[in-house]
């Protein structure tokens, strides 16, 4: 992909990165996601909002097939990333997850050094040919994770020794170290204090220049602050999906309106 096209895409923001058609998810007998259709645009932040248990995290986890790791979980329907059906037999979930990074609700750095946390992904995928190259990847990822200045002098110290907000930015840096195209974030700020939240939100805003970011959040203010597109889930249904400003100022569905005005939730 050359730079010309990239600029073009940044400008009009209309390229579809992820297409979901008729996605259903079942946990045993529970029907968790009901016939969801959505198109997620490249290089934007898309927020999934909705009350607890509405299926927004479940749907997020379909996008990198993390639901495969749950025995009783069954996914039907079609999800395409760049026109590739990710549930197709030929797609290895390991490769898909290198392409679609994920940041979790609770900061979960490995109990290893900060350096090794970042270097782990590039190492297992063989992205660096030499130690020098690996060092570069680590530095670049930490810089993009907006945490380089805080940890550059203590890369050998355990990642678990950082504060909660730093740990979460470390996890984001770790996720982008493998050069994914899509970054999934499952309530990345729910365990953080307001200052750390602000730092992570700023980082998300930075990241959407290079990645498609999909973020699940409980906080409507956060969705309004960081996202360009918002999807509202309720009881497993995708109720409404539109530009963030439209959703919050002019919702078409009464359920969306009830939720954003605090009547259901």
């Amino acid at each position, binding site marked *: 992909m050359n730079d010309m096209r990239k600029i073009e895409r940044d400008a009009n923001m209309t390229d579809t990165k992820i297409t979901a058609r008729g996605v259903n998810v079942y946990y045993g007998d529970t029907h968790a996601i009901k016939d969801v259709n959505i198109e997620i645009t490249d290089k934007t932040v898309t927020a999934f909002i909705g009350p607890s248990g509405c299926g927004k995290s479940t749907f997020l986890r379909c996008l*990198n097939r*993390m639901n495969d*790791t749950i*025995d009783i979980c069954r996914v039907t329907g079609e999800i395409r990333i760049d026109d590739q059906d990710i549930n197709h037999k030929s797609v290895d979930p*390991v*490769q*898909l*997850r*290198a392409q679609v*990074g*994920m*940041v*979790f609700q*609770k900061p*979960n*750095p*490995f*109990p290893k050094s900060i350096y090794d946390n970042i270097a*782990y*992904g590039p190492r*297992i*995928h063989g992205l660096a040919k030499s130690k020098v190259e690996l060092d570069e990847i680590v530095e670049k990822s930490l810089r993009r994770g907006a945490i380089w200045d805080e940890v550059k002098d203590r890369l050998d110290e355990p990642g*678990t020794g950082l504060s909660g907000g730093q740990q979460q930015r470390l*996890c984001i840096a*770790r*996720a982008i170290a*493998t050069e994914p195209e899509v970054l999934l974030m499952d309530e990345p700020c729910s365990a953080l204090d307001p200052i750390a939240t602000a730092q992570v939100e700023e980082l998300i805003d930075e990241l959407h220049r290079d990645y498609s970011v999909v973020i699940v959040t409980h906080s409507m203010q956060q969705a309004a602050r960081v996202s360009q597109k918002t999807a509202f889930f309720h009881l497993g249904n995708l109720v409404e999906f539109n530009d963030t400003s439209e959703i919050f100022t002019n919702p078409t569905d009464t359920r969306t309106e009830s939720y954003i005005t605090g009547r259901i939730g």
Partner: protein
Amino acid sequence: MTDITNAPAGPRKATSTELVAASLKRRRRKQMRLQWIGLGAISIAFLMLFILVASLVSTGWQAFTQTHLTLEVYVDPEEIPEERLPRGGFDDALAASLGQMLPGVDMSDRATARAVEGILSNGAQFELRDRVVSDPSLIGQSVTMTVPVSDPYDQLNKGLIERATPEVNRRVKDNEIAWFDTLAENGAISKPFNFGLFANADSRFPELAGLKGALVGSFWALLTCFVISFPLGIGAAIYLEEFAPKNKLSDFIEVNINNLAAVPSVVFGLLALAVFIGWFGLPRSAPFVGGLTLALMTMPTIIIATRAALKAVPPSIREAALGLGASKQQVVFQHVLPLAMPGILTGTIIGLAQALGETAPLLLIGMNAFITSAASSPFDSSTALPTQIFIWADSPERGFVSRTSAAILVLLGFLVMMNAVAIYLRQKFERKW
């Protein structure tokens, strides 16, 4: 009095604060009672432990020393000619030397001479023989040697045979006590640390019997047990916990592994006797077979401990690695297993400590044989620590009473050591997240 006039009909209702205060008293009493019961239980447990160790130490400590006699032996070329080695009249040489140390004793009388010879351990003549055989130039010279005295004299010296006891009820007669006292007055008697307890293998004579054979046998058996049960146990646990589909079959296997851990050890011994010795024709009394048997017993313990340790690894770590695109195998071996290692090692060492003290299965495969040399390979006949204790506890000689206690102390010492290692490993490798 004023109450009567002011109160409405019926008794006044207690406020909730009063009710709470009343119930609080009751709840406090209950809590105190529970605390006292717990304290009592712990005290009783400690008392029992103290009694056990104290009784072992009080009988066992004597076995950690051994009475020795230092004497100068003239290696008479007429009794011990060089060309007849290793045969020769070594016992006569020792008797002659003793005779010189006991003036006034008529050594020409055969019965007296034999009684005097009885002061020394039966092993003394073999020690003299070995020295002369290894250096024949000693023939015609005097050799100074310090050798164990026989068990009755050892008991006498340690005060376990009371001099006040009437002579007929005493194993050591009055004239023998007089001989011993003469030797002691001359400074020939000493009571050094009993290195023989660790350096010698088993013997019919308590003063010569040691634990070397048992220690070596237990070492080989535990090594075999570890080499087999550790990788197999961890492998089985990883498969069951991480890879096996959760269905009826895996439930069935899980129930059976838990049951296997509760099977009486003697049953494993019978199984080993039938399968390892009967079908496979492995040697009897061999630590290798003992180790195989103990491995069967230890494996369920290791599997259960490993599964618990794997389960305790937070799912967030697995998700983190999976989310980065690690394969299942990479997640298990690069993240889960290292984090579970302290728990696995602790479980394994506790399993091995259990195996070290296990007696019944070893009895069934013949590891309670009387074997006077330490095994040089896991396939040689041998005893193990617990079976050695069993053998000694069964022996009639007085000297084995204290040796049995001493052997139990040694076994307990090893168990404490293994548990200490387990605690150390757990603290060393435990990582916080």
